[in-house]
Each structure stands twice: as structure tokens, then as C-alpha cells.
């Protein structure tokens, strides 16, 4: 049995009287992407801050690559990377200088910063100062910086928040590549499409607690309805029929409608992650 890249047991953290993380437990295996899905203030970023050693937990324990987390643990920090929600780059440095500087802090002497910039589509701007970059380019810089030490564990805090679809897709592609390389990825997001597309498993977090944790498919099956919506031509208009797949005779009825010359479309009616989140928490993911 392989050691989990991230192992969290009953983790708690409070800001004064406010409980930000309550008895959170989960594991992430090497090469797995775990999507942390929740609205703003749900405790996603706080969990990352605790797991990356920025804040000590109030109680509970967490291990990264089998090593217990704590302040100033260079063995852990050499093998992790964090992509912050805040674009905390050195704006007066060039893209290349930013990457080379961080590579040097990890003790990497032969960092191929240009290749990493090429992966995120910034090779042509390598020698430009970051202050001249657009929001999307800065976010791609953030991602490339997170890749500089070939991390075994990657923490990504809202990596595509507020970006255009093209940039978001490019970033998601690179995240997938990192997971394929073997990195465990903890991805926080409030974008259900992102979580659905990228994550091997999804954790719903609300008010500091994990309310559900499973693959997106299983969550949809568990909380959604197994039904299809069939649209048929009906004279001059269109008629719709909902068929619950768990009811008796549904297969025959579906086969009959599928053979009908009036058939226009058949849609599955699985629940979206957002709908499941609302069902579980009574809150929307945005805001």
C-alpha cells in the first residue's frame, strides 16, 4: 500500500472564536487530484495554509508524504508547491528571473525555467518584467512557479479564478500533466465545472466541514436523479417526457421512444455538482 501524499485526520483551526476548519479528514494519493469545492469562506484556503506549514493546526494531525506537518519543515517544503489565489509575484523581476530565483531557493541548479514558461505559453515573454503582464499571464506565471521544483504535492488555490475560458483551459491542461507525472494535487475551487473536469475525487467543504467526499460520478449518482428527458415532435410543437430509470418498464419505454420517428433529443438528467452542493448545504458555490 502506497503512502498517501496527503493524509489529514481531524484537522481543526480557528481564527479566534471563528472555527475555520472543523475535524477535516481526507487523503490524497500520488497522481490524484482532489477538488476542494466550496464557497468563499468555507475553509478551503485555511486548510491549504495549515497543510503547507504556514499556520499550525489547533488540533488533529496531517502528514505530507509521510512527514508530519509543522512550522519550518524544510523536508516537506522542498517537495511541495503552492499556487496562491493572490498573485504574489515579484513584479519588477522578469518572468525568467522569478522562476530562477525560486528555483535557487529550492537549491535547484539546473532548473529549466524556459521549458516551464513554454509549457504555460509564456516563453516569448520570458525577459519581460511581470508588471507588464495581464491578469491571465500572471496566473500562468503563478502556475509555472508552482512547477519549478517538480513538486510531489501541489496545492492550487483557485488557480483559474476570474480567468477567461481559453486561459483556464490551458491552466487545467498543465495541472493534468502534473498529476500524470505523479504529483498529488489539492485543488480548491468554487467552480463546479473545474472540479468536475479536473478532479479524481471531490470534497464538498462548507463552514469548515467536509460534507461529502467521493468521485464526482458517485456523488451525482448518490444525490442526483437517474432519469432521462426525451423531446419529441408533437404536430407543430414539441413534447417532453421524463423517464425515471429506476422505475419498472422504463427500459421498454425508452426503447420505444428511441425508435420513434418523432424523436428529437434524449438528455440524461444527472445532477450537477452545484445542485448537489445546494442540496447538502443549502448554499450556492458562488459567494
Amino acid at each position, binding site marked *: 500500500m502506497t503512502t498517501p501524499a496527503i493524509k489529514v485526520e481531524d484537522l481543526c483551526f480557528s481564527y479566534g472564536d471563528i472555527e475555520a476548519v472543523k475535524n477535516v479528514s481526507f487523503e490524497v494519493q500520488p497522481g490524484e487530484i482532489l477538488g476542494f469545492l466550496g464557497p468563499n469562506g468555507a475553509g478551503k484556503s485555511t486548510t491549504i495554509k495549515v497543510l503547507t506549514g504556514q*499556520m499550525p493546526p489547533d488540533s488533529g494531525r496531517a502528514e505530507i508524504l509521510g512527514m508530519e506537518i509543522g512550522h*519550518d519543515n524544510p523536508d516537506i517544503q522542498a517537495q511541495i508547491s503552492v499556487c496562491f489565489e493572490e498573485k504574489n509575484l515579484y*513584479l519588477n523581476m522578469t518572468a525568467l528571473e522569478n522562476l530562477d530565483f525560486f528555483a535557487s531557493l529550492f537549491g535547484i541548479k539546473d532548473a529549466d525555467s524556459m521549458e516551464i514558461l513554454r509549457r504555460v505559453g509564456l516563453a516569448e515573454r520570458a525577459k519581460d518584467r511581470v508588471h507588464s503582464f495581464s491578469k491571465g499571464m500572471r496566473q500562468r506565471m503563478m502556475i509555472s512557479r508552482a512547477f519549478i521544483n517538480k513538486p510531489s504535492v501541489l496545492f492550487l488555490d483557485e488557480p483559474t479564478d476570474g480567468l477567461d475560458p481559453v486561459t483556464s483551459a490551458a491552466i487545467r491542461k498543465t495541472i493534468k500533466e502534473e498529476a500524470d507525472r505523479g504529483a498529488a494535487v489539492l485543488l480548491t475551487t468554487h467552480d463546479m465545472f473545474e472540479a468536475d473536469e479536473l478532479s479524481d475525487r471531490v470534497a464538498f467543504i462548507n463552514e469548515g466541514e467536509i460534507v461529502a467526499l467521493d468521485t464526482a460520478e458517485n456523488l451525482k449518482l448518490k444525490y442526483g436523479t437517474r432519469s432521462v428527458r426525451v423531446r419529441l415532435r408533437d404536430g407543430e410543437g414539441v413534447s417532453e417526457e421524463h423517464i425515471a430509470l429506476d422505475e419498472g418498464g422504463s427500459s421498454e419505454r425508452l426503447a420505444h421512444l428511441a425508435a420513434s420517428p418523432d424523436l428529437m433529443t434524449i438528455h440524461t438528467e444527472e445532477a450537477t455538482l452545484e445542485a448537489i452542493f445546494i442540496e447538502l448545504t443549502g448554499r450556492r458555490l458562488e459567494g
Partner: protein
Amino acid sequence: MSLTRILKMLRKDFALGPRSPIFLYMILLPFALTGLFQFAFGSLFTPQPRLGIVDAGNSAITAAVEGADGIDLTLLDDAAELRAQVEANDLDAGLVLPAGFDDAVRDGGRPPLQFYIGGESYASNRVILTVTALDAIRDLEGSAAPVDVEVVSFGEAGLPINLRLVPIIVFYALALAGIFLPGSSLVEEKEHGTLNALLVTPVKVSEVLVSKWIFGVVLATVMSGVTLALNGALGPRPLDVLTVLVTGAILVATLGLLIGVLAKDSTMLFALIKGTGILMFAPAIFYLFPDWPQWIAKLFPLYWVIEPIWQVSVMGGAVTEVWFEVLVALLISAALLPLIVVVARRMQAQMVSQ
């Protein structure tokens, strides 16, 4: 703690510094103040009178000029070369002392003496060099001055105002380079979130603070040294001057670090510097007003930095004469360290909770 990582961060700060307008402003301000004060109160840039001598006979006049304060003496072998240098305004005046000149003067003869004067030299320098040369010849002859000169001084006795301004200019160089630059560099890392980015790498907060501190010490030492050099106040003992400058830089950089960890943002940084500015600036003012009770200056921490620099660089003393002041400066720096550690822990907790 990794020295390698500290040096890498230090190199980054030195590389980024010149790209920041505020860094350049802080570096240039002491130079601008030097220029302003010298323009207003007389110039310390004004060169000393420059006298060249060609001495064919090991004259006592040469020895007398060598022993005189405030004259820049150049000894040459060739009268033609001397003349060329005076013509080129490399020297204000030139004196050609032939062999046997001293004996001839002592014997009451009137040997010829060539005295070149540069047409572009300052009139004050010509007068100083002429009078000095005539005095030396009179001494050689063994005769007394034909008149008794009664010297009547006007104005306040003591050092000239432009010399007493040196502590203020040095204070600015020290404070801006040693306090403001490391403090603002740390605050900028906090404001831009880059400190958080550093702290999730193997870098420790102590390494960041040490790198900022060294940044301040190096800048303050260099800036105050350059400022003293510009003001012609480097003193006769370079190593002693370096010792007091480094001591001063250590104290100001420690204060800068404390302000940097205390301030959450630039607004608070400026408020802290403005609020504490008069306390830091006060000892420099006492050098302008020697009639004030000087013991009051000792109540301010930077007195223990400025006084050794004043004594060693301006007054030409040795560092052994100011060992107590140097020791107090180092003790104040050491006493601030536990405070910095406590505030830095609070800073780290505040940063991640934002």
C-alpha cells in the same frame, strides 16, 4: 538557517533595488543634501591649497610646508613639469627651491626664488600659499615679523558650520539606507504577498529577516562612508572609520528591521518612521548647537552611533577613544533582537490569517 538562501535573497534585493524609484530616491537624497548644504554654507568640496615644490637641496621650507595643516603638497623633480602642472591648474602654485637656497638665505643673501601662481586658482588659495611660503622663508632667515599682529576673532568659536552639518548628512545616509530601505523592503514583501510565497519554500522567516538586516547593514555602511568621503570627512584612520560605520549600520539596520516587522503596510511604515523620526534625528541636531547641554543627546539611541562617527571621522580620533559608545550601540542592537523575534512571530501569524 541556510547562508546560501540568505545570500540568494540578498542578491535578489540588491538586484531589485535599482529598479525601484523609492530606492533610488533614498540613495540619492544624502548626496542631494550634501550638495545643498555645501551650496548654502560653503563648500567642503573646495580643494585645499595645492602647492608643488621642486626642491634641489633638501630645503627646510619643504619640511615646514609638509608639516603645515591644510596644504596639499606635491613634490616634483623638474621645474618644467611643475610649471606645466600650474599652467594646467593641477596645482595652485609652485615653488622652485634651488640647491643651496637655505644656506644663501641664512647667510643674508637674496637668492632668486621662482614662485609660479596658477591664473585659474582660487584667490584665497594664492594668498594662503604665498603667506605660508613667506613665513617659512622668514623662519629660515631667523628674523621676526616686522609687526605684531593682534588677532581679533568674531563670531562663535568652534568648528565651522559646514563641519557641524556632517552629522546631519551622515544621519540621513544611515537612516535612509539602514532603517528605511530594509524596513520598506520587508513591508513590500508583505504587501505583495511575496513573503508568503517565500515561506512555503524551504526559506525560513529568520532567513528572510537576516537577509533584510544584512541588506540594511551593507547599504548603511556604504552610504554613510560615501557621504563622509563626499564631505571630506573620512578621517586619518580608515579602519577605525569603517569600524564605527559598521557599528552604526548594525544599529540602524536592526531598528529598520524592527520597524519593518512592526509595520503591516506602507502607510504604517511611514507613520512609524515619521513618528519616531524626531527621536532618531535629535542627536544630530546637538552638533549644530554646541551650547546646548550635550548630555541630553545621550538619551537618544542614535547618539551612540553618530558620536563615534563624529569623533573618528570628523575629529580624527581613534576607535579606542570611543569604545564605550561603540559598545553601547552594539548592546542596544542586541537588546532589540528579542523584541524583533517576538514581533516577527506575531507578523507571521497576522500575515497568513489575512
